[in-house]
């Protein structure tokens, strides 16, 4: 029983990381209809930014987050303005290609600035093990699960109760109609990139605190893709839940079946789910996938 509980807790921790990264993907997809293939690189870049801030100023986790998130949002806005805004009105495929190019640029820039060596980054968190019942956690692992819950709550509140959030849903439902109703689509796109970068920062800091900081962190973007597909491309909350499911399934598969099944378990789940619900667990029916 302990073994099962330990596996589930480990799965929730890795699933929380997947979920946060997938939420960033879902937010941009919801607002712009485009999958941002540079999301993993944003996670990596913002984690490195936090690492530099932590190196310069001794900050606790929440203070570090408070400083990093606005910078991440500014990075998201800048990238949107430079790379995505000029592509407005172009075919989705062209915009996706731009995000792929952006991903390569961000990887190169990160290595140029911070170098290729992996780094230890505690992110202002203690490394004392906390035990909840029979289950030990590092604080960073609990923070990852907690932050995912907070992000889900904030996303729900934002999309349901704020003016910008409702406008974003309107753009997602029908961009032309939203435009005719006076919604600034450009502004919504910018907000989506900015908020997505903020989520990437939280995900990046906690991922680095749990699994080290390195220039190969961008790959977590691709690892989180099954969570996004499972939850539904345009559902933030679905992406978070999808992340947790994929994390737990992967860990259970490795724990009980072993020998590399972790790698394929997530994909088996999405194949099965998509056969039953092609738009994902929480996605809207009329999604055109890229």
């Amino acid at each position: 029983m302990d073994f099962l509980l330990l596996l589930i807790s480990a799965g929730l921790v890795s699933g929380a990381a997947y979920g946060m990264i997938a939420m960033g993907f879902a937010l941009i997809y919801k607002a712009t209809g485009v999958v941002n293939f540079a999301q993993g690189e944003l996670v990596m870049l913002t984690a490195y930014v936090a690492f530099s801030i932590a190196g310069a100023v001794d900050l606790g986790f929440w203070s570090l987050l408070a400083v990093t998130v606005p910078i991440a949002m500014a990075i998201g806005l800048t990238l949107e303005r430079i790379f995505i805004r000029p592509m407005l009105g172009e075919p989705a495929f062209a915009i996706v290609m731009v995000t792929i190019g952006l991903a390569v640029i961000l990887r190169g820039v990160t290595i140029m600035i911070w170098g290729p060596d992996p780094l230890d980054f505690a992110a202002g968190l203690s490394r004392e093990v906390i035990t909840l019942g029979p289950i030990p956690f590092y604080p960073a692992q609990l923070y990852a699960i907690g932050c995912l819950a907070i992000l889900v709550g904030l996303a729900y509140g934002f999309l349901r109760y704020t003016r910008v959030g409702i406008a974003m849903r309107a753009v997602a439902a029908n961009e032309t109609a939203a435009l005719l109703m006076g919604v600034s689509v450009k502004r919504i796109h910018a907000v989506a990139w900015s908020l997505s970068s903020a989520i990437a920062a939280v995900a990046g800091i906690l991922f680095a605190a749990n699994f080290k900081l390195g220039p190969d962190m961008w790959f977590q973007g691709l690892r989180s893709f099954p969570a996004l597909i499972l939850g539904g491309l345009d559902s933030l909350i679905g992406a978070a839940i999808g992340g947790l499911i994929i994390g737990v399934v992967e860990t259970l598969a490795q724990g009980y079946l072993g020998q590399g099944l972790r790698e394929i378990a997530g994909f088996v789940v999405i194949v099965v789910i998509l056969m039953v619900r092609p738009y994902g667990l929480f996605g809207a029916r009329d999604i055109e996938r890229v």
Partner: protein
Amino acid sequence: MRKIAAAGFAACLFAGPVLAADPGVTDTEIKIGDVNILTGPASFIGRAVSIGSKIAAAEINAAGGINGRKIVIATEDDGYVPSRSFQALKKLVESDGIFALSGTSGSANILAMLPLIEENKLPTVVTTTPNELVYTPVRPSVFTIGATYQDSFYAQVKYIHENVRQQNAVYGVIRQDDEFGAAVEGGYDKAVKEFKLKDGLRLRFKRGQTNFSAEVLQLRAAGVNALVNGGIIAGAANILSEARKLNMDLAVASVWSEDMPPSVKLSQPAGYPYILADYVALNDAATDTYVEKAKKYLSADEVGGINRYSYLSYVGLKVMAKAMEACGKELTRACTVSELRKIKNFDTSGLTAPISFDNEQQLSGRELKIYQLDPKAGTFKALVDFKRY
């Protein structure tokens, strides 16, 4: 007209040896190739290899070169991707015209390059990845320095069995699912069979995996208390971090790359005094002397990048230079290979055991030294001196 023809014929006769000479050699230079990992997460290895070659070349050139010819290093990046290694070597051979090869990247990378090395009969000294597949079967122009991963892990498990976990030991291995990982498990397997050890669990993982929570839980469930950790750099550190979280009492054997400062920094927080077996000296008089010597030729930044791979590439190029020197002015690849085969007890000033290639496998430096990490200080102490396993 006859005189002109005769003069032309004579000129051709005299020019013959020059035209027939192997590529990469001029009256003033010898061009040595170096295929290396200069980009990506493992690039600190490649940078260190380049630094070692640079020191060796600078030292040789400062002493007048090889029979008056200066050594020039031509480096190509492969990003640790085997297909790129092949392309890089093809460029070095066909475009740059190298005479010999010194840097040879990772295990899968040198294996990808071997057909081209054989085809061109390139004198090659492999120092960074002494994988058994490199010298089995023996390639006439390829010489290898270093112990195998099998030997390294056999030595460590033997040490743990005899000195650390003499009773109630349950052994386990976690390793990459590639040639390197197979070599790690090979050493583990040999020790387990020879010493009749309790084999708790064997696990494989994909290269680049970061999360080992499930694997470490499996190891704990199997009662493993002596672990062969086949992870490298962040992977190795993440395995130890998960084990620490579960409060596992472990004796840990590690890959020799875990003696490098970036790896040590990542693993230190877990606090395990892991051991490793290396065919290169660490933290002793030989390496201190080397670093002092290196400062003459390197920037402060480059001196900071020195690690075990620098010592190895330095030794590799010095051995190659010794063979080339023995060929005199008529330097050819065939002669260099023949002289490399005669190398016996080449003194490396304590950086490795003395080098001898006068054996069937053209393999040397297999002696291993066993070290243990002090996780608080981040330094290693020697447990067993250079010894053949």
